[in-house]
């Protein structure tokens, strides 16, 4: 499937700002599951954006406007072709060998440990956060895919998906206490569970082609293509990183466009900036348009 994505952001200051440094992480991934066909970044006032990859493989751009200004805007237009029509297009490893497969992957690529060991307020140690509720334990002999999909139910019971909620706050305890959360909150809870099993899991930000789900629009509620969506990737034996969306209880296929990947949402904030200004923090206006081309 081919998508055209346009994202724009305007940053306005009440008092003039200077030495304004911006780092954005908005370029879709280019790998075996999706191709980045084209990307154009525009910045106003004019600046020379520099592209670089971060430690998780995300492509980011940074630029600076040094002179005094009250407004800075940028836009990114990208064309992406997604290929994962069937999320299960791989040869399964027999369940009894899955543990050994994961252990071997960790041995060969120690960087994967980041996605097993990382704990934060967003991805806490489950036992500390989920008191009084049974935590599903890893079941030997049952395939990991099956266990992750079964975990959707547990995540949904712990907090109901509310598409109207903005992306996650600073920690997971508030949505857990409230019993409802954003897509990012549900993703963080699923990650915490999968890491509790000592299996690598990572947080994904991107776009979801909501229009594709016309028939089940009711179930999607207010979800729209016009905001970032968040889901989870789990290292599946035999299949590598595979996407799971606990908010919609779906496996991520070609209707999901991956933009940024990290240990949790904090790792991959789409915009980071630093500037010198005498006034209050800046105001942001953002817009996003994702459209399916074919």
């Amino acid at each position, binding site marked *: 499937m081919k998508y055209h994505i346009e994202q724009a952001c305007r940053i306005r200051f009440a008092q003039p700002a200077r030495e304004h440094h911006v780092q954005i992480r908005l370029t879709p991934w280019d790998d075996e599951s999706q191709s980045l066909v084209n990307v154009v970044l525009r910045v106003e006032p004019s600046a020379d954006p520099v592209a670089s990859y971060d430690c998780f493989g995300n492509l980011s751009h940074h630029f600076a406007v*040094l002179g005094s200004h009250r407004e800075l805007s940028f836009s990114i237009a990208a064309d992406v072709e997604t290929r994962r029509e069937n999320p299960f297009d791989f040869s399964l490893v027999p369940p009894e060998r899955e543990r050994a497969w994961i252990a071997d992957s*960790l041995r060969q690529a*120690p960087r994967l440990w980041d996605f097993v060991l990382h704990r934060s307020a967003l991805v806490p140690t489950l036992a500390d956060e989920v008191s009084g509720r049974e935590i599903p334990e890893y079941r030997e002999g049952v395939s990991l895919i099956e266990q992750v999909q079964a975990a959707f139910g547990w995540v949904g019971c712990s907090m109901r998906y509310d598409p109207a909620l903005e992306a996650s706050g600073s920690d997971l305890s508030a949505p857990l206490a409230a019993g409802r959360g954003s897509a990012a909150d549900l993703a963080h809870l699923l990650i915490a569970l999968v890491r509790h099993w000592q299996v690598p899991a990572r947080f994904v930000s991107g776009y979801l082609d909501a229009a594709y789900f016309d028939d089940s629009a009711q179930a999607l509620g207010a979800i729209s293509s016009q905001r970032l969506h968040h889901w989870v990737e789990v290292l599946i034996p035999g299949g590598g990183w595979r996407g799971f969306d606990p908010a919609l209880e779906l496996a991520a296929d070609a209707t999901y466009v991956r933009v940024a990947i990290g240990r949790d949402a904090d790792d991959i904030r789409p915009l980071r900036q630093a500037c010198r200004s005498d006034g209050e923090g800046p105001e942001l206006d953002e817009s996003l348009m994702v459209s399916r081309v074919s």
Partner: protein
Amino acid sequence: MLKQFQSGANGTLRESSEGPLMAYHEFYRDDFCPRDHYLPMWEHIQSVGQQILAAKVKEAHLALHTEGVTFTLYAGEEGIERVWPFDILPRIITAGEWNQIEAGLKQRVRALNLFLKDIYHGQRILKDGVVPPELIYRGKDFCREIMDVDPPHDIYIHISGIDLIRDEDGRYLVLEDNLRTPSGVSYMIENRIVERRILPEFFSRYRVRRVEHFPDRLLQALRSLSPRGEGEAVIVVLTPGVFNSAYYEHSFLAREMGVELSEGRDLVCKNDKVYLKTTQGLRRVDVVYRRIDDAYLDPLLFRSDSILGVAGLINAWRAGNVALANAPGTGIADDKAVYAYVPDIIRYYLGETPILPSLPTFQMTDHQDRTYVLENMQRMVIKAVAESGGYGMLMGPSSTTGQREEFRRRIESNPRNYIAQPVIQLSRHVCYLDGELESRHLDLRPFVICGREIEVVPGGLTRVAMTKGSLVVNSSQGGGSKDTWVLAA
């Protein structure tokens, strides 16, 4: 580790219930006669008498005061500026002893640089199971943001201050590696300047190796990192500012090297290059000797609330347009839990036996070690792995029940954050305090510069626990210092 400690297999740390171990005395032999290399000094002290020595103490204090050699002691919210505490009697290290220290430190720094290069690139040592990946990936100071970046000449640790102590047999042991922004080198030099001024007659009796050239050597090493070549190198010392406890040292080194002392607001990044704001406009900077911790170095990448750093600095470093000394991410190599693996790290990368031994270290992540330590807290030093300056530490023998309970709770809630070591009676040395010769415990921080070659400055900062019986030498905890003489062969 546990077994070795209990059996005293290393021959030095004989765990005893009869009381503290006898500390090695640097100055006296067992028969209370001065050691041979101290005899000329001893004879001189005897000959000049009390009055003159007391006058020299006053003179030293006045000189340090006049020169403004100070440090900031934090007491609650406030910082109190103090004149640098200095004992006039020097510590003397023989050429033979120094050769061993020098070789051991060079070996250690070489291995730790290779370790950092590996950890931030291929991670061979983790794949081979020599260091557990959990140790790195749970380490607070593992800086994943710099993965796969190549620093100039593959060097991460340009300046280090490695703390050494001596056990009861006089054997030098590494207490901790300080590989981030180690302090103390200015005090090493100032101690020497004062000592030369007030006790010139001592120097005529010994052939003491110079330490005053440290800033020249540091400047050479920093120049060698310049991406535009040594000839054009513009170097700055980046300081957090006047409120930092080591500000004196930052200004001292900038002055001695003849480079700009700058704060974050004096620098700006543009197109992945770093510039110094001057009255003549922006001037390109090639090397930043930074004395700001990683977390505050670049608000665009690390702590966004940092007003001390320079936005865009890491991107400029990543692009190879500026060198940072030390490189970001060195903190994982002096993490106190990684410290226990340094002997293995040396063997792994260099295929050599460690010249300087490390202290036995109990990992709180290890169930057996943790149980043993929690049952023997009074006989242990417990340290938070990423703290320095004597902070986040429990000295078991002098701790209260409440303090031990607090540390027990902290260890149980975050075992990766703590290690424990047996209490070592640091070696002692005579000090001239209030008109009396008194023995006090001390350690030694030699400084290692790593440019095109590794150089250990022959001397170091000898830190003295000024309170009788105390083992805490940190200046932030009331410690003092001595001039350190390394004798020429």
